[in-house]
């Protein structure tokens, strides 16, 4: 039976049919989309508390009732891990929140994370019939996912019976970000003895060092990691595959497979004059100092620079995280400098909205060309070139073109460069037999995620370059499924 048949079978269950009949489609469609309660901008820029407060039970049940439980649900096709969206939503509507959470857990290792950080407007919600056909706002699938995961975590004990009996086969994972965690969760479910090796002293990758507390609280990430521990997954921090342990060491230790999920941690700079002045740093450095090292807390030793006039260069989620963090660190004037227009910004719509509400000044169609410093080497001025949009490039996006002569100087005392990341070369350097692309990504078979070495699989940003949490998780799940298939047929 394929996925569609299983989906139909579940949809035909008596409770689902009854629930569908309990309200007319007209009634469902007349209900407006729920609004997420959130902290006021004035309050939230003075603290690090999570901005989105989550739905109440009543809000969630009402929002769930909007879903029409389509016979051929397109929302599922918009989800990179194929969550059974109508099934979990209908469980919320009938108030069986645990069943909703279990439906999510069946396909997603980190629903409380994805409900918060996925760009739903480009994924599941973009395919929702409300948005695609009816000219209405999509069902708030992300909010509901978050609700079910949060409710279950707060109200139910994790059961030890989640643990699958071990088949004794040892599998290593390099990196504990979203790809590594998703892979580890699935392999543990299949019965493998999984160890996740992490270079940093904390588990979670970008979920810990990158995404800030006001968007994704660490306790949420830790709860999901504890869930994986309960399933038998082992975690080894401070251990770098390719440095602390070599590929040969892993073989000697009896590992039968390696999943490389080491990410695209290498920050890109623009290579313009003055970029090494004091006060110019990558968003990775800025966010790591604050999120991972606690630079905002007086009891933690790691320092971070403070600026009054802060420019963040870029238009992705990391740029949004950086501008919003700078506001919370007390900067009075925070500028987002992006070379295209707002329409082309890759960041989540919600983060753009939140950043604006928090007083971030958007300098779109501008590009820095030089930084100037004072006698001590501190950045003081950013020289920017005004841009306009030209013809669409190969990717279909209109490329920015400089407006001749339109150059101005802007006062800055801190610049955060957030123009993307490159794949980290650490593992490729350590395992020279691995086939690499010219961009420095590991070459894998697109369906199996298997690399040029038969026992190494890879996924997430080390394969894609900088992408999203959910795509990384999807890779982890696909790699687990195909590694399991390969190992069980041996």
């Amino acid at each position: 039976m394929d996925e569609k048949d299983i989906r139909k079978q579940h949809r035909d269950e008596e409770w689902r049919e009854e629930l569908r009949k309990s309200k007319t489609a007209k009634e469902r469609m007349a209900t407006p989309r729920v609004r997420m309660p959130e902290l006021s901008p004035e309050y939230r820029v003075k603290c690090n508390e999570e901005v989105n407060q989550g739905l109440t039970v009543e809000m969630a049940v009402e929002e769930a009732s909007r879903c029409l439980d389509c016979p051929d649900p397109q929302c599922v096709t918009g989800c990179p891990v194929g969550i059974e969206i109508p099934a979990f939503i209908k469980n919320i509507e009938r108030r069986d929140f645990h069943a909703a959470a279990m439906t999510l857990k069946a396909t997603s290792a980190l629903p409380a994370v994805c409900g918060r950080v996925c760009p739903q407007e480009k994924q599941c919600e973009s395919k929702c019939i409300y948005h695609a056909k009816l000219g209405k706002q999509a069902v708030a699938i992300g909010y509901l996912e978050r609700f079910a995961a949060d409710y279950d975590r707060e109200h139910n004990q994790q059961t030890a019976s989640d643990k699958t009996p071990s088949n004794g086969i040892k599998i290593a994972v390099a990196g504990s970000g979203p790809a590594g965690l998703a892979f580890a969760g699935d392999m543990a479910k299949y019965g493998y003895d999984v160890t996740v090796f992490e270079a940093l002293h904390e588990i979670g990758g970008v979920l810990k060092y990158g995404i800030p507390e006001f968007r994704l609280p660490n306790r949420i990430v830790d709860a999901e990691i504890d869930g994986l521990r309960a399933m038998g997954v082992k975690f080894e921090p401070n251990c770098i595959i390719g440095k602390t342990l070599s590929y040969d060491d892993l073989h000697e230790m009896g590992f039968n497979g390696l999943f490389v999920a080491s990410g695209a941690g290498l920050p890109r700079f623009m290579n313009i004059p003055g970029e090494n002045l004091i006060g110019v740093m990558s968003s990775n450095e800025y966010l790591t100092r604050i999120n991972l090292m606690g630079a905002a807390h007086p009891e933690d030793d790691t320092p971070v620079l403070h600026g009054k006039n802060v420019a963040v260069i870029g238009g992705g989620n990391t740029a949004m995280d950086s501008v919003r963090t700078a506001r919370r660190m007390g900067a009075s004037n925070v500028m987002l400098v992006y070379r295209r227009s707002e329409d082309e910004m890759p960041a989540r719509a919600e983060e753009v909205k939140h950043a604006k509400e928090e007083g971030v000044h958007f300098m779109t169609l501008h590009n820095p060309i030089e930084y100037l410093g004072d006698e001590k080497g501190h950045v003081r001025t950013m020289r920017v070139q005004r841009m306009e949009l030209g013809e669409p490039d190969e990717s279909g996006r209109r490329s920015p073109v400089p407006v001749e002569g339109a150059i101005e100087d802007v006062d800055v005392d801190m610049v955060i460069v957030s123009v993307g990341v490159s794949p980290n070369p650490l593992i490729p350097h350590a395992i020279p037999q691995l086939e690499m692309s010219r961009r420095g990504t590991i070459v894998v078979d697109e369906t199996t995620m298997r690399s040029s070495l038969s026992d190494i699989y890879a996924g997430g940003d080390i394969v894609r370059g900088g992408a999203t949490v959910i795509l990384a998780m999807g890779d982890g799940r696909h790699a687990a499924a195909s590694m399991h298939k390969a190992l069980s047929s041996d």
Partner: protein
Amino acid sequence: MNKIVYKRHFSEKVVELVVEAPLIAHSRRAGHFVIVRADEHSERIPLTIADADAERGTITLVVQSVGKSTHKICGKEPGEYLHDVVGPLGQATHIEKVGTVLCCGGGVGVAPLLPIIRAMKDAGNRVVSVLAGRTRDLIILEQQVRAASDEVVIMTDDGSYGNKGLVTDGVDDVISREKVDLVVTIGPAVMMKFVALLTKKYNIPTMCSLNTIMVDGTGMCGACRVTVGGKTKFVCIDGPEFDAHEVDFDEMMMRLHSYDNDNK
């Protein structure tokens, strides 16, 4: 958590710690470093691996107390733990037989220099070592350097031990007296800068090991970036060793002052 099994003082502010880290001891080579976090509130700081014993599963770190983090580490006693030690990091030193290698180090820079001296000697080179310090108390590891070198020259600023003068005076003497094929220098940035300026005059290939501000030490953040040959490099993954004649030492020294206001 990594247990400290041995500690001794080289001077009031410089200590040697032998730390349990079996996997690192097994994998490390000359030139590698580790990132250490003293306790759960500490920052991550880079320290070069001065020595290692793969059988006993230990590495040796030489630490000079210059600020809060190094003060915490230097204050640890045997039986206590370093919260996190990760490595070995960076590129290992490129070791080959070139003829005569002059290794010069200042202050605690002698600690990371020692494994390179040993490896250069093992590769069949004639090794002349120049050790420098402000005063006699700041000359460390002299005995070990002597055991691994063909000749050792000691320089102190105040003349309290060895020859009076700067490290560059010692280097200049050796270069003017015999053919040197390679210079390796590790120490304060300003010292390496002047060694590089001197050897450039004689056209002798010169390698330095840079110690910049770092956070993760794995290439993730770029806090450690320096300009080498006009290009931006990350010390933690491209280095820590570079061609000293290509390094922009003035920019590096400027960047080392980024957090002067925070140095408690």
